[in-house]
């Protein structure tokens, strides 16, 4: 059974006179340890799809089953707990807690999970070492570069030992060197921790590295290909 099963998913916005079908009958199965990019032009529905996979948005129709849990059947607070224990998030703008150090940002997720202090410290050390920031763990986000902040965000996303990581345009705010470095890191973590990564992106560098590329257009899946080396984004 797939880690993520998306069946006949619809998301319709009725904010205008004409309903907007942001996601239109998407069916998609994502297996464990996949390194998948969801691509497509702006407005194609990739962020909406990722938001629904992350339990942040409610589908209009269809269902999402993650590791045998149907998200539609979870209450709002249960979804929060589900996200905490099953999903890691990486955001385009890093979105670290500005008043915490790199290490505290990583630890914070584990604190929410009520993990013991010793485990929190050991895991945050391990993850920050894995992302190459063992020397900057006591720095606050404002003292780190964009690439370094996104690395902390990656460590934070993995801190909860999630089933998968959702990354929304993770390289969009990074220069090319930082972006390549981040992708190297995520590939390595994907292999090391067998963590599933799902990206929304229209960055060619990400698309080239993805082992599976799902292309959306007008809310529908246009292509779904394995091991694609070059896929045109926008």
């Amino acid at each position: 059974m797939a880690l993520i099963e998306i069946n006949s998913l619809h998301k319709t916005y009725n904010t205008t006179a004409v309903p907007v079908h942001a996601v239109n009958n998407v069916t998609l199965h994502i297996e464990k340890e996949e390194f998948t990019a969801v691509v497509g032009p702006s407005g194609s529905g990739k962020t909406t799809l990722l938001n629904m996979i992350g339990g942040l948005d409610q589908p209009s129709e269809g269902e999402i089953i993650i590791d045998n849990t149907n998200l539609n059947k979870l209450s709002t607070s249960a979804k929060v707990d589900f996200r905490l224990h099953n999903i890691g998030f990486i955001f385009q703008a890093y979105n670290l807690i500005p008043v915490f150090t790199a290490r505290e940002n990583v630890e914070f997720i584990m604190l929410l999970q009520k993990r013991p202090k010793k485990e929190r410290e050991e895991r945050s050390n391990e993850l920050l070492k894995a992302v190459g920031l063992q020397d900057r763990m006591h720095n606050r986000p404002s003292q780190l570069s964009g690439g370094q902040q996104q690395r902390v965000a990656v460590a934070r996303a993995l801190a909860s030992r999630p089933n998968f990581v959702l990354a929304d345009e993770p390289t969009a705010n990074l220069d090319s060197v930082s972006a390549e470095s981040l992708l190297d890191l995520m590939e390595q973590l994907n292999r090391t921790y067998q963590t599933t990564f799902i990206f929304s992106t229209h960055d060619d560098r990400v698309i080239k590295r993805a082992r599976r590329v799902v292309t959306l257009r007008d809310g529908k899946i246009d292509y779904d290909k394995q091991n694609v080396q070059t896929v045109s984004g926008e």
Partner: protein
Amino acid sequence: MYLSLSWRNIWRNKRRTLIAAASVFFAVILAALMRSGQEGSYSYMIHSSAKLFTGYLQVQHEDYWEKRSLNKSIVMKDSLVQAIQALPHVTSLSPRLESYALISHGSETRVSQVIGMQPEYEQAMTNLKDKLIAGRYLTSGSESALIGEGLADLLHVGLGDSIVLYGQGFQGLIAAAKLPIQGIIKMPFESMNNAMVYLALPNAQDIFATYDRITSLPIMVDNIRHLATVDQQIASMTHHKYALKSWDEMLPELKQNIQVDNASGIIMLIILYIVIAFGVFGTVMMMISERAREFGILISVGMRKWRLMVVTTIETILVAFTGVISGVIASIPIIYYFHHHPIHFTGEATHTFEQLNIEPIFNFSMNPSIFWDQAFIVLIIALATAVYPLLFIRRLKPIDAVRG
């Protein structure tokens, strides 16, 4: 870590946090100062009026206050007076025989209030001797009189002159006496200055034919809070034989004036509280609104809303506490100074006070409850503003917040 998160969050924007804490800080100082001034003045008004006129408590015949007649006087043994004086919290007392009489000299006659008193007791209670501006103070065996300065002027008399007292004594007997003037006193109010005549109690009892009777036993206590206790003890000692009148029964105008002034003071305080509430609320609103996206992110990554509410509530508590504690600390020396250096009114303002028979002094209270009460109220107001973040977070949709 939540406490740490809250503490660091409030210092993200130091200036804003300091402004919010400062508004609470000044609010506590202002509220404590206002309240201290009011309560201090009320206490002083009550104390000075009680000291000068009635005492905090009076032992009387049950009909005396209504009739004001010597026929409603009482016999009180010295042993009972001494026993009452020995009660805890009783600081002084003065057995008195009070009546009204015509006082004449030559062709001038005035209606005066005549008080027969035991000079040592009266001195202990009212410091009457200190008001002497000419002549000598009375002794218990004196057969002469002390008169107010104003009355002396009206009658055109001075030391060594004699006045004639003419009035009604006990059970309709005529009270008449020729009294040499032994001293002239200056009372704090014109109305008293123009009307008071003091005699030694035995002499007054002899003139008014009351023998060993007195009309009242005014009593001072160390603190108005102990009045009820002393009242109960005296009632028990006297087997409920006498009426016990408290200052507010004997000085109802003073009580009403205090109530009216207190009400206006409370209205001022409420206005102050409202201004504070809006100031703190505005700051909290800004602190929260600009972090909507961050809240959205935290909820997205798995932070329950209630945990976020705890963090924001702790933030508000920390800001409010910082302001409240520093406000209390700063207000203590300010109020302490005014407590020991009360404001003395001069000019026109003094007339208003004198009309109420109150010395024109604005005193400040150091009652600890003033500091804690104001601190507590301001803290509650500040905490009430924490409701906004709670509602904000409750309504927050993480997806909308993350989108910005």
